């Protein structure tokens, strides 16, 4: 299948979804006024990917900021990934956060509490 690559902007993250390797990366900031529009193609891509997924799916979330509008869309994305987990692919989430960024660490814990996917919290100096 085709990879999904989007450049980041002042309000949206860069997207690198690779169907062959099964590595899905979101990086940067996600603060659009209306996030539904931005996340729609990402979720559509995951739908297609779920039909012939790679054995392992690694989701790298490397967000510096995200707004509450995005938080809902990110949850929906995790739900989609949860629904394909164990059906031809093992999904794991790497949640990156910068040193001393308790808020981003807690945001990862929020999803961990709601979503039934393995989460690894990874502290880095800079995203």
């Amino acid at each position: 299948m085709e990879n999904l690559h989007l450049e980041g902007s002042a309000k949206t993250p860069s997207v690198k979804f690779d169907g062959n390797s099964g590595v899905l990366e979101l990086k940067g900031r996600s603060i659009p006024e209306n996030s539904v529009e931005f996340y729609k193609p990402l979720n559509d891509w995951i739908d297609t990917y779920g039909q012939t997924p790679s054995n392992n799916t690694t989701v790298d979330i490397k967000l510096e900021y995200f707004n509450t509008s995005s938080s809902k869309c990110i949850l929906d994305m995790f739900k989609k990934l949860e629904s394909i987990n164990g059906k031809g692919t093992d999904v794991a989430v790497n949640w990156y956060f910068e040193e001393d960024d308790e808020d981003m660490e807690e945001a990862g814990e929020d999803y961990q509490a709601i979503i039934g996917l393995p989460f690894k919290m990874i502290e880095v100096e800079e995203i």
Partner: protein
Amino acid sequence: MNLSRIFNLYRTMEKENILLSFKGMVTGDLLTSVLQIMESKMTYLQETPRMKKKVFNVLVECLQNLYHHIEEEKQNRNLEAKSALFVIVKEDQNFFIRTGNFIDLKSANELKGRLDIINAMNKEELKLHYQEALSSGTLSDKGTAGLGMIDIARKSGNKLEYEFLPINDDFQFFCLNVKID
């Protein structure tokens, strides 16, 4: 015009420790610019990464609240209903984000109810409240999730100071003061 009013305005803004203020229509482009300006200001002021992130996060939510509120009033013929105010203040080592906007009575009552619930919660309760709202709520067409105020309270770590000022039979003026320390 008495031009000394310009100087008076300058003095007032200085006395109130205003870093940035705006009154009018809040658009997406305006928000992009304001966020950029605030990021460079905070770098210039050598704020800690923690403070920079908190201010930025709270600012995004406060300004996008105004933005979505004004979008709702787009059809309203009353120009004032589409106008809002925001002020960013640094006093001692604390930041304050202050917003003001007109709001109809019904929405005001609903918002007051939500704010009182949020203000009665401690850190742990807020976390659970947020998780609950996140997992149960649905996104409106505009992409708002009703999570904004909970998020502002969580990230600021302070109570949301607010007041609804009576204007007329239809409208109140909603004032919000968020402290980030």
